[in-house]
Every structure is written in structure tokens, then in C-alpha cells.
């Protein structure tokens, strides 16, 4: 992974920069000691490591604004970081960059049940928001698997999903407002407790922008009343085709379940060995369907979906009869990543999305690749929305195996794009998929995206080296090639 060449003059100014930052954030809020910086050298994508020049942990919006204004005027790069759970290297530090850690922004500022929203600082965890409102029966819907640790600010930066996003939406669909700071120190407020943007939807643009456009200092999200009941169904199928057909038939019948997750044989076995969830071991494909709502609705849908599954050739069919059993059905799925971690020294988690009906073909071709690369792969799949998480098993201690796993992963993602899907469903581009952007986007597409970046950060100081395979100067991107004086469209209907 090639990152932008560190700027030697900035590297040489380390002590001076640390002093300047210390004047903004006094005391222990500035970390410049090489050993102390080690904890920040990677995020959830641990294959890539780099110690930052300096880490700074501001506590106020004013400090964030002054830090950014200082870095902007001095031409110093900045990498924002929430909890560091990114799986795409979005928070990977730069050797010549300041790591801006938002961990101290950890307070909930306003719980407004009447307007059904919560205002929180970005360092509050995803689960922390639900915990703050559950006494009144409310919750925050998006629930990424890392919800104990990941922060709401990071969720916005990555547009995080979760197993319930089929029915309840992603972060972008549950976000009402933001306060953010631009690289020049300008503090902006987008949205609020009302719906929809005035002017351009910069709130939507910021969501999933991976820390390249601004630093989030406050978040307002919608909260919902929790459903009265939830039950889960467990189905086993003899083939991936049968499982995929069942998902299509459920949606075709007009049913949008609260969650719908699929696992392949390798993932089923790893999970069952780990947590003994009671999964059948003689099936190729396992489907977990969760229904939530009033009891009468859940019972009705369980009957209908069970009939659909039977029609699609389910060989195992069980409905949870207690909350304990529902959680047990989920336990294997939720433990799938660590379960795979148990059977392999290392694993590499991919995150493509495909049109759902292409699943059997994609799994088949992945099995062929697996044989070719000599690396095992297990698959978990957000079946409702086509988001696929292949886990490639490898051993980093074997020379060349990481590179081999990366090449296998890249080939999987190219396959996702080839069948009409995308490179990343919820983990972000980061550094990991940066160099694959060209398989999905043309140069013109990427240039237009970077012109948006230029509107926010003209010198490309915020999180450079992420998302875009090549950095272009804004002046170069802004240039227009004009050939005047002729109408080049003689056949264009004109009235």
C-alpha cells in the first residue's frame, strides 16, 4: 500500500508543531512520544500500520477549529479518528500527519423524546445512544456489529449499516443534523431537529465521506420506539441457490423483515464450533430472518415465511420460541468473525455488495478463486440488501500470504463490480479499496468527486491518500477545455 510521500520539512518540524498544538490543547492532549503513539498506528484493518507524526485529543469545538486552522495555514496533513474500528484503513495515520482523535467528545448533549432525537458529541458510541434512551423504550436503529466500540461520528463518516438496515435504513437515513469544522477552521451547522436540508444536501454528502471533507463535532440522530416483540427464524438449505431463492421469494411476497442474514457452509461450521448456536451442519446455506413488530404481525409473518421457505426446499426450519432462543440464533452470526479468527491465524474481511440474484454465481466463482489462490474463504451475507462479507483465511507469518490474500480480495471485489455491484457496502474505501476505484468509476467520475473535495479542502490536507487512487491538484481539476464557436450537435432536436 503506497501512501503519499511524507513531507520531509514537516517531519523535521515535529517538535515545533507539537508545541504549537500544545498551545491549543494544553496538558496531555498532545501526544508526541514515539512509544505512546504506537497505540494509534492502525485501525481495525491491522494489516496496515503507520505511526502518526503527532496525535492530538481536543475537548472543545474551538480547539478543533484552531487545530485545523493551524494545520491548514502550515500545510500539515490531518487524519481524523473516532474509535479506530474502521475496517478499511480510513483512520490509518500518516507519517507526516497530525492524528486528530475525537475520543474526548464523549458526551450526550440533549435527549429530546418529544422531537424523537438525540444530540451527541461524535465520540459517543453507537450503543451509547441506545443506552441513553432505552429507559423510555427508544433506541437508535443502525446497529453495526462493532456498536459497543464504534462511535457515532465514525458511523457518519462511514455511513454505517448493521443487520437491521434493510428495514430501518443506514446512518444516512437516520441522521438529522451535524456540526462540523472545515480544514480552514470554519464551524458549520447542517440540519438540526427538523427534516431535510435547506439548500444542497451537504448532510447527505458528509455521510460516508470518510473524513475527507470535514471534522464532525456534533451529531443529531433520530430515535425510534423499540418494537413490541422480535422473533427469529432459522432455515437451512441444501444449496446456495435455494437459500437465495428463498430471500427473493420473501421480498417478492412484499415482506421486508427486520433482518435477513445468510451464511455459507464454511461460516456455519466455524460459528457452530465456536458458540454452539444449534446450527445444522448438513446444509450449504443458512438463513436467519428476524421479524419485529406487534405479536400478531410477527406470528402472521412467521407462518407466511415458513411456508415460503418450505416451498424453496428448506431442510431445517425453526422459529425462536423465547428471547433466549432468538439471541442464540443470532449468536453464531454475530460471532462469525471471531469464529473464523479461531480457525485461522489471520483473516481478511471483504465488503462488496452485489445484486442479490447473482449470489449463487458469485459464490461459485469465489470457490474457484479460493482453489486457485490456495486460501480458504467463509461467507456471511446481509442477504436482504446484497452486502457480502467474504472472510479470507490466511497466515501473515507465511511470506507472501498477506499479499496473496489481498490479491484474492481484490479479485472478489472486481467480481462484485462485474456483476453490477459495488466495491464496498458499509466498510468504506479507505486505503484498502482505494486503488480499485477505477474498476467502478471512470476518470471523469473520480474527477467530479474530487472537485467536491476541492470545495471543502482545496489543498487536500484532510485524510489524503484515502478513497482516491490519485491525488490531483484542485487547480488542475478546475481547468476547462473549451472549444468555442461551433455547435457540435447538428442532430440534436432543437425547437
Amino acid at each position, binding site marked *: 500500500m503506497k501512501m503519499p510521500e511524507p513531507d520531509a520539512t514537516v517531519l523535521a518540524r515535529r517538535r515545533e508543531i507539537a508545541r504549537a498544538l500544545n498551545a491549543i490543547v494544553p496538558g496531555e492532549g498532545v501526544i508526541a512520544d514515539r512509544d505512546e503513539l504506537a497505540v494509534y498506528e492502525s485501525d481495525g484493518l491491522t494489516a496496515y500500520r503507520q505511526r502518526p507524526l503527532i496525535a492530538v485529543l481536543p475537548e472543545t469545538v474551538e480547539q478543533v477549529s484552531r487545530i485545523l486552522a493551524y494545520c491548514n495555514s502550515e500545510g500539515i496533513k490531518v487524519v481524523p479518528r473516532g474509535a479506530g474500528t474502521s475496517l478499511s484503513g480510513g483512520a490509518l495515520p500518516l507519517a507526516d500527519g497530525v492524528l486528530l482523535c475525537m475520543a474526548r467528545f464523549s458526551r450526550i448533549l440533549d435527549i429530546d423524546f*418529544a422531537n*424523537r432525537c438525540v444530540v451527541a458529541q461524535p465520540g459517543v458510541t453507537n450503543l451509547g445512544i441506545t443506552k441513553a434512551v432505552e429507559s423510555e423504550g427508544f433506541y437508535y436503529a443502525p446497529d453495526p456489529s462493532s456498536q459497543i466500540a464504534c462511535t457515532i461520528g465514525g458511523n457518519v463518516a462511514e*455511513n454505517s449499516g448493521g443487520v437491521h438496515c*434493510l428495514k430501518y*435504513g*443506514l446512518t*444516512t*437515513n437516520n441522521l438529522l443534523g451535524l456540526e462540523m469544522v*472545515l480544514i480552514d477552521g*470554519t*464551524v458549520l451547522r447542517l440540519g*438540526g*431537529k*427538523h*427534516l*431535510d436540508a*435547506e*439548500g*444542497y444536501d*451537504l*448532510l447527505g*454528502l458528509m455521510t*460516508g*465521506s470518510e473524513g475527507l471533507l470535514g471534522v464532525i463535532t456534533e451529531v443529531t440522530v433520530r430515535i425510534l*420506539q423499540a418494537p*413490541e416483540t422480535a422473533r427469529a427464524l432459522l432455515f437451512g438449505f441444501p444449496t446456495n441457490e435455494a437459500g437465495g431463492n428463498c430471500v427473493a421469494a420473501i*421480498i417478492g411476497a*412484499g415482506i421486508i423483515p427486520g433482518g435477513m442474514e445468510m451464511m455459507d457452509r464454511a461460516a456455519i461450521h466455524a460459528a457452530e464450533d465456536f458458540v454452539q448456536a444449534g446450527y445444522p451442519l448438513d446444509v450449504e446455506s443458512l438463513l436467519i430472518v428476524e421479524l419485529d*413488530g*406487534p405479536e*400478531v*404481525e410477527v406470528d*402472521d409473518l412467521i407462518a407466511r415465511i415458513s411456508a415460503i421457505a418450505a416451498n424453496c426446499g428448506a431442510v431445517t426450519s425453526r422459529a425462536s420460541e423465547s428471547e433466549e432462543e432468538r439471541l442464540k440464533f443470532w449468536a453464531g452470526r454475530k460471532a462469525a468473525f471471531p469464529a473464523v479468527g479461531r480457525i485461522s491465524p489471520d483473516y481478511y474481511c471483504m465488503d462488496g455488495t452485489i445484486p*442479490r*440474484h447473482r449470489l449463487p454465481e458469485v459464490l461459485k466463482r469465489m470457490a474457484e478463486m479460493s482453489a486457485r489462490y490456495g486460501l480458504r474463504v467463509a461467507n456471511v451475507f446481509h442477504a436482504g*440488501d446484497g*452486502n457480502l462479507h467474504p472472510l479470507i483465511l490466511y497466515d501473515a507469518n507465511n511470506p507472501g500470504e498477506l499479499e496473496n490474500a489481498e490479491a484474492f480480495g481484490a479479485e472478489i471485489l472486481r467480481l462484485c463490480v462485474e456483476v*453490477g*455491484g*459495488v466495491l*464496498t457496502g458499509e466498510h468504506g474505501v479507505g486505503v484498502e479499496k482505494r486503488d480499485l*476505484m477505477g474498476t467502478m*468509476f*471512470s476518470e*471523469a*467520475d*473520480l*474527477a*467530479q*468527486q474530487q*472537485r*467536491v473535495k476541492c*470545495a471543502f479542502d482545496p489543498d487536500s490536507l484532510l485524510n489524503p491518500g484515502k478513497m482516491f487512487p490519485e491525488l490531483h491538484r484542485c487547480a488542475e481539476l478546475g481547468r*476547462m477545455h473549451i*472549444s468555442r*464557436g461551433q455547435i457540435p*450537435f447538428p*442532430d440534436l*432536436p432543437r*425547437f
Partner: protein
Amino acid sequence: MTGIFRPESARQVADAVAWAAAEEEPLEVLGRASKRAFGRPVQAGQGLELSGLAGITLYEAEELVLSARAGTPIAEIEAALAEKNQELAFEPPDLGPLLGGEAGAGSIGGVLACNLAGPRRIKAGAARDHFLGVSAVSGRGEAFKSGGRVVKNVTGYDLCKLMAGSHGTLAAMTDVTVKVLPAAEKTRTVLLLGLDDDKALAAMTRALGSAHEVSGAAHLPAVLAADSEVSYVREAGGAVTALRVEGTGPSVEYRSAALRRELADLGESEELHDRNSAGFWQEVRDVQPFVARPECLVWRVSVPPQAGPAVAGALAQGQDALAYYDWGGGLLWLALPPSKDGGHAALRAALSGCGGHATLIRGPETLRAAIPVFQPQDPAMAALTARVKDGFDPRRVLNPGRMVAGL
């Protein structure tokens, strides 16, 4: 306007915009021109109408996805979806009649460009939440795409969000992909009768704070309820507060009964079933109460739900204002008598305390040219907005002035 381009391919759109950029000739970008009277008047010598880019290009019901050329009539899309018992869950309003035109005349591109959404906004989101992919031509005359055909996608910036609500000022869309959803099997609407604005807000807040998945929460004062074409509403004899539940049969019956029981302390209630319920929400969606009052200026005001009655109250003082609420109090539809500033100053002042935004949806062209139609921005936001515009359309040839004077 001296001429209109009606391109029939994305390539022709690119040619037309490239020419406009080279000649610095502004273009008025239109879908099917049904909402031309919405926004500030555009000063452009040429029109670029996308009605020639029509037709559904992909519809996979079981994948919940539909792609169409940007100028495809919304009516064609809704008909295709209805055949598979699906719909655009954000309930796109048909503003044609409100703006003095025909019903059912808009395009999918126009709906997305205006980011319109109906009563179900509170549960299902706005047009922007269903906008998965776009191909467009920037003001530089360059074709680009963003997003895709899948719901879960964080590959690159979400430029669909920027296109939604940009009123054609950033790019001319040529192809769009949207998420579609199954239509509800059953719908019921609980009507609470005779509540004043504050009690109605309390009722809507309790309903939306419940687990009953309310998908519409509106309140019509007596004078507007009396105009409804739904007899139960028209003959209610007072204000009507409406709460909609949708879903499977047993669930809808259970939830509507639960709502009536839980809100029984607020007085008597009625229930609208499928056809009446659909008719009522269509009236709320399409601002029907103000269609028959063509002389009034119509504002659409989005506020924190609890601020709705206070904002309406502040505006009603001393003038003949009419208002009704959607989105549980968070959307205020306001009709004001014609005036020199259209009520703009009073509205902005009323919003300054609570946050939110007001948009003049209907008003004479002279007024729309004279006052900010959209919510004015503070200098920092205005500067960023201008930089974003210039990133797409540096010569400002696409719908200049549609949203903000000079931009």
C-alpha cells in the same frame, strides 16, 4: 427563452451543456416542466428539457430496484410499480395542480431534483433516501456517474444526495436508479376530532413516540377539513387529526385499535379504511387544501415537530393565514394572502429561534425574483454552497439563480 433543446440521448445532453459552457449561455434545465413555477425564475436564453430521455430501463421487483431515464413520467413509473404491488415509499407529491398545471405531469428526475416527499417522509425518508444511482452531465459538459443499483453502497462520495434537492443547478441528470418497496397490504387512518393545534401536536407526538409505526401524522384545522373530498373528514364538523398505520392485515387492525385506545383521553375518534384513507393522504401530500385558493402564497416550512404550532401562531398574528401540519407537526403548509414581501421576513424571524427552513412553493414570478424563495444561508454556508456549485458548474450555466440569486 428563445429555444429549447430536447436531447434524446445522454450524449446529446453533454453536447448541449458543453456548448452552453463554451458560449457561457445559461440553460434552464427542465424535466417535463411541471414544476417550472417552483423556485426563483431562471434567466436563460435556452431551455434544456429532458422529456426526450424517457423510459424505464431496468425494473427488478425482487431486488427492490428500478432504473429509468431522468425524463420518464413519474406516472409511468408508478403504474409499473403498482403492477407488482410496489411503490416509491417516499410518496412523491404531485405539485402540478398546486402550481396551476395538470396532475400527473412530472418526471422522476424532477421529483428527485426537488427532493420531494409526502406524508410517509417521517417513516420511509425523502426522495434522497431512495436515490441509489445517477448518471448526469455537469455544467462542464462532462458525463459522470455516482452510486449504483444496490442499497448498501459507500463507494465514494454520495453524489446522489447532492443531486437530490439541487434543482438542476449542479448537473443535468440523464439516468437515475431508485430503491422501490412493497406497497402495504392494508392501510387505516385513525381520526381524532376537534383538537386544537396544541392538543393535536400532543396526540401526534404520543402516536409517533409509540411502537405502532405510524406512517402519517397530520392535522387539518376545521376550515380546511371542511373542504376535503373524503366525506368523513369533510363532515367531521371540526378540526381533524389523522394518524396512519400500514402493513399486513392483522397488524394494521391491531395497531389502529391500540392507537384509538391509547389516545381515548383526547376525545372521540373515527377510522378511515383503505380507499378513504388513501384519498385523504393524497390530499395532504399534494397540498390539496390550497389548490382551490389560487390567490394565496404557499410556503412549506420544515421545523422541529414541537415548534410547529408556535411558528404557525407567530405568523397567523394579524393576518389571514391558513395552516395545516404534516410530519407530526414538523411540516407546516402555510397559505398567506399576497403581500409585498410574501411574509418572508416574518417567517424567517419565526424560524430563527427554533431552526428549520421555509420555502416559497407557490407565488407570482415577480415575488419569486424579489425575495429568497429558499432559506437564506449564513455567510459560511453560502460560501461553501458557491464552491460546491463551482465544482460542478464553474461557468454557472445550469439553472442560474434557481435557488440563490447569482448562483
